[in-house]
């Protein structure tokens, strides 16, 4: 009877937790596209880094990720040579900071592009949102917003960032390549938003494994201590 109650509570709590994870998808009405990402996949993360440094870093920074971090995080583990090539004159301990000054950005785009270090946590849908926005540039059906500033997935649809991957009017043959680029950079941004996440999940498996055993042992111990109590 009591065990049944505990089991019911466990089931209820677990379903609540699962539900809370599923709810997050999207809140602006448009369903986001699902990004195929794997934050443990070194190849994908490195490809994403290349998209980030070649395209995004023209305007955006990721100041919490240092050049040294690109070597140190096992998920990336770039060679010293590769990092030296990327950083040029910047010191190893510098963050990935764009050469575009905030003042110039304001003149060109009307606002300062946000830092992307934690962007995957700072937007509902995370990597799915990033992927959707990068491949969401369309012609405005109402014809009001100029080309390159209309985005299906951006809240309010009017985005200051002009189509970075050249999605609008791209050749049919390039679709797969552009989608792959958007997913790779979404994976990279999801990784740098919380760079210890893979380590965290691995440790978490050991912790939960230990706790399952501990719970079982304590349950049996409790039963044996209580065996002389009559109800």
């Amino acid at each position, binding site marked *: 009877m009591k065990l049944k109650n505990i089991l019911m509570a466990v089931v209820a709590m677990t379903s609540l937790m699962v539900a809370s*994870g599923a709810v997050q998808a999207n809140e602006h009405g448009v369903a986001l596209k699902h990004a195929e990402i794997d934050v443990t996949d070194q190849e994908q993360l490195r490809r994403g880094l290349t998209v980030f440094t070649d395209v995004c870093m023209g305007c955006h*920074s990721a100041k919490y990720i240092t050049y040294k971090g690109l070597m140190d995080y096992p998920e990336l583990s770039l060679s010293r040579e590769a990092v030296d090539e990327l950083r040029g004159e910047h010191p190893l301990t510098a*963050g990935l900071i764009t050469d575009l000054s905030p003042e110039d950005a304001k003149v060109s785009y009307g606002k300062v592009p*946000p830092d992307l270090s934690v962007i995957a946590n*700072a937007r509902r849908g995370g990597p799915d949102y990033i992927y959707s926005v990068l491949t969401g540039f369309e012609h405005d059906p109402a014809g009001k917003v100029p080309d390159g500033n209309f985005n299906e997935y951006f809240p309010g649809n009017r985005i200051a960032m002009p189509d970075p991957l050249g999605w609008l009017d791209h050749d049919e043959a390039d679709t797969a390549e552009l989608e792959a680029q958007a997913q790779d950079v979404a994976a990279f941004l999801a990784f740098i938003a919380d760079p210890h996440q893979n380590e965290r999940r691995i440790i*978490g498996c050991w912790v*939960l494994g230990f706790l399952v055993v501990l719970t079982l042992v304590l349950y049996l111990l*409790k039963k044996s201590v209580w065996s002389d109590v009559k109800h």
Partner: protein
Amino acid sequence: MLEKMMKTRLFAWIDERTGAEAIIKSQLTEYQVPKNLNYMWNFGSLALLVLTLQILTGIFLAMYYKPSAALTYGGYTVAFDSVERIMRDVNFGWLIRYMHAVGASAFFVVVYMHIARGMYYGSYKGPRELLWIIGVVILLIMQGAAFFGYLLPWGQMSFWGATVITNLFGALPVLGEYLQQLLRGGFAVGDPTLNRFFSLHYLFPLLLAAIVGGHIHALHVVHSNNPEGIDVHEGQGTIPFHPYYTIKDAFGVAVFLLFYCYVVFFNPQMGGYFIEVDNYVPANNLQTPAHIAPVWYLTPWYTILRSFESKLLGVLAMGASLAILFLLPFLDRSKVRSSRYRPVYRQMVILFFITVIVLGYCGHSAPTPTLKLVGQIATTYYFAFFLLLPFLPKFEKTKNVPDHI
């Protein structure tokens, strides 16, 4: 094991100077507890565990955290940078910070369960009125500590949440404006606010620790209530706390840790419920987020606040909704404690729990006219529950209460 330890010469030496043996006997090995407590009675020890975890992780976080709203590159601040530094560069900083952030929510989960248990089984009724009142003080200090703590990462929700809540004080007559400026340390939420909130966020848990000591002491004077809600006497249906309830609490701790560690390691933001998405955006006083909502554990009271057109009325109602908890032992005039023998109260209190959940849902969601109406109905019932209690014995036919467990 405990008996063995108590027979050593070292223990005898300590006992001579502290009276440790008498304390251990009166508080643990000979402290009498009803034998029929169910698992709802585990949440008290869990609350103590989470408080300890919060204080310990908090001490380590404070070694690295910097309470400064000075701007840094990219629209961030020294405070935000220091949190990210903890997450990235401090050894196991991510673990300590997620434990602390998830711990805040876990603390409210266990404390709300603890309060619900007290209400359902009538644990607030005589002779435990003062025990209940100390508990309500703990709840208020906890809510304050959580509110101060949420400002510290200096994200958008930190900033705007603090702005909205400190604004409330401005609505109070005469002293309101003064109080608001005192809390903020200026005319708007800014660097001085962050510094005083950090100071208070460190102070409040220490107050909590002291008052929790008082709560436990008060409990040990009047002893635990039980699911039957009847008085028990030593030798009749009681067992010593140790070893029976130490092992039962330990088992409860293990079950709790399973859930807690699952969230810490696999879902620390809990889909935006434990750490809100907008709080990863650095605070910006020129840009209001589309939807400002406090963290889930404060949303029921936020709905009560929003249910009134007049800001002053809303603030007063919110204050009253918490203050009325103090009066619960005196509003309830029934002689019977447990809901098991009070059919009408049982329905009322279950509906009350549902109401609080509904209030929480309304406060968390973006406001719509429907939700506003639902919130107003729920607010009405919230107060009606308390105000009906004094009249309940007039028409409630209680069932026969057994005279022993």
